[in-house]
């Protein structure tokens, strides 16, 4: 069954879309990742224009993080103060990202920019994940290995405008969280991702936040930044495809439910290695397309379309 996407102005197989949404949803249920960083490149592969894929991907992020953030708010595992600072940074970053995205669109280089950012970030994440999970695998076989020390103080924390973050038990400058939030906002606008994969490690290792509030606080920031970015893409590019989003969201919510249950029964370390390899494979495919001489040197863009 084909679905006509009114904004992308093409039709795609409905089951492919549900499969992409469901598959990524399953992964996000299993690993607690948003999965935006997989949805957007998978959409490129099935022929959705990158501009539409990014804007719709970020809309899907809202759907996949909303129920999580509500659950965390109920459990009071959200540092609202920290979340607000991260959010302010995120909104600024999103504005910068949207501006850059539209500039590159006009110059005809947006596809390249999106692909390059994916190669870079998927490469880094996949590499780090693989390294981390291999190390964890070795550690689980050799439990006497030393543990890493958490919560160090860097010079960054001692910048001016210090602020007390009660829930996290931190007294640090507002600049590091602002910058972290901003970086994530830029990524949301350009790549159509939530950015949890960058923010969560940054919150733990850079800001030194306690792990129990990290997920809830990052989801809090992601939900609002993704919503804001969706709106900005809709207003400036008209590139959010609601029809596409619905299929991805429906596939995603069902997939996430299955993933959560499957994830409980499987071994975390092996799964993590599999996810790392998948991320690296997607990265490799995009890199290959950029490096390999294309079959057709010419491409066509239509003014006002994607």
């Amino acid at each position: 069954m084909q679905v006509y996407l009114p904004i992308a102005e093409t039709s795609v197989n409905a089951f492919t879309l549900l499969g992409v949404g469901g598959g990524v949803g399953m992964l996000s249920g299993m690993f607690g990742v948003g999965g935006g960083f997989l949805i957007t490149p998978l959409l490129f592969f099935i022929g959705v224009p990158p501009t539409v894929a990014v804007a719709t991907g970020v809309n899907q992020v809202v759907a996949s993080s909303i129920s999580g953030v509500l659950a965390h708010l109920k459990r009071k595992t959200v540092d609202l103060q920290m979340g607000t600072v991260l959010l302010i940074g995120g909104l600024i970053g999103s504005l910068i990202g949207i501006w850059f995205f539209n500039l590159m669109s006009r110059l005809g280089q947006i596809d390249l920019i999106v692909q390059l950012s994916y190669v870079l970030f998927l490469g880094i994440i996949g590499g780090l994940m693989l390294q981390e999970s291999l190390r964890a695998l070795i550690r689980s076989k050799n439990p006497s290995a030393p543990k890493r020390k958490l919560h160090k103080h860097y010079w960054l924390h001692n910048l001016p405008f210090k602020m007390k973050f009660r829930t996290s038990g931190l007294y640090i400058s507002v600049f590091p969280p602002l910058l972290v939030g901003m970086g994530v906002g830029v990524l949301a606008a350009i790549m159509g991702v939530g950015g949890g994969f960058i923010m969560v490690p940054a919150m733990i290792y850079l800001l030194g936040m306690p792990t129990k509030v990290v997920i809830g606080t990052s989801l809090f920031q992601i939900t609002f930044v993704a919503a804001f970015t969706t709106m900005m893409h809709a207003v400036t590019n008209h590139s959010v495809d609601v029809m596409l989003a619905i299929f991805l969201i429906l596939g995603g919510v069902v997939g996430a439910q299955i993933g959560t249950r499957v994830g409980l029964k499987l071994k975390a370390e092996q799964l993590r290695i599999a996810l790392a390899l998948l991320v690296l494979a997607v990265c490799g495919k995009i890199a290959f397309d950029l490096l390999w001489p294309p079959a057709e040197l010419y491409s066509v863009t239509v003014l006002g379309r994607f």
Partner: protein
Amino acid sequence: MRVLLILWLGLLALPLRAEEVIAGLSQRSVALTVNFEGSEILIYGAVRREEPLPDDSDLNVIITIEGPPQTTVVWRKARRLGIWVNTDRQDIRAAPSFYAVATTGPLREILSQDADLTHRISTRLAIFEARGAADPMERASFTEALIRVREGQGLYQQHDGGIDLERETLFSTRLTLPKTIVEGRYAARILLLRDGEVIDEVETFIDVRKAFLEHWLTNLAYEQPFLYGSLALFLAVFFGWGASALFRLMRN
């Protein structure tokens, strides 16, 4: 076939004038619905004439379908720092979003160059390049690339010999509109030729419209982007939160 026969019989009854073409389409509107997978259009017609068939020349028919014109840019990639990047561009003032040519024989043989220039029949002549600094050879290579790319997507088609002509009177052909066509008015031209010259021409239109929901969504996206964005967010929140609430209910 019955339609053709009735058409033909009808012609016999009419007072005869010059050699004229009469044509019909299997459909005059195409709706881009949720499950749109492309559409096939049957174009048929007949020739009515006052004199007996001349023996010294062959009758030929050309049918073109032209989608709404678009301002486009053709990019060429080159290797920069190891990766393939769009480097050169050529603006195209107007290129049809869809262009199909079907003929009864090889286009170059049945159509004189002059007639092609006057009636703009071949795909190359349906495209209007913008004037630029690039030399004409360069410009031509970009336009040819545009045709090649769109032929690959089924948006530009050339079917030499794609029209069946029976007894120099009845003709028909089928043209496929691919799933990637855009909205708008598509002009179908039916041209009658003898000795490379166009002796008669009729034009008719096919309306390609998005179906109600798709049309409404596109309009909203472009004319009320803030409302559209709010709708997108509402749906995301509704389905994202609603579905997990539903699953929680089911589990309890």
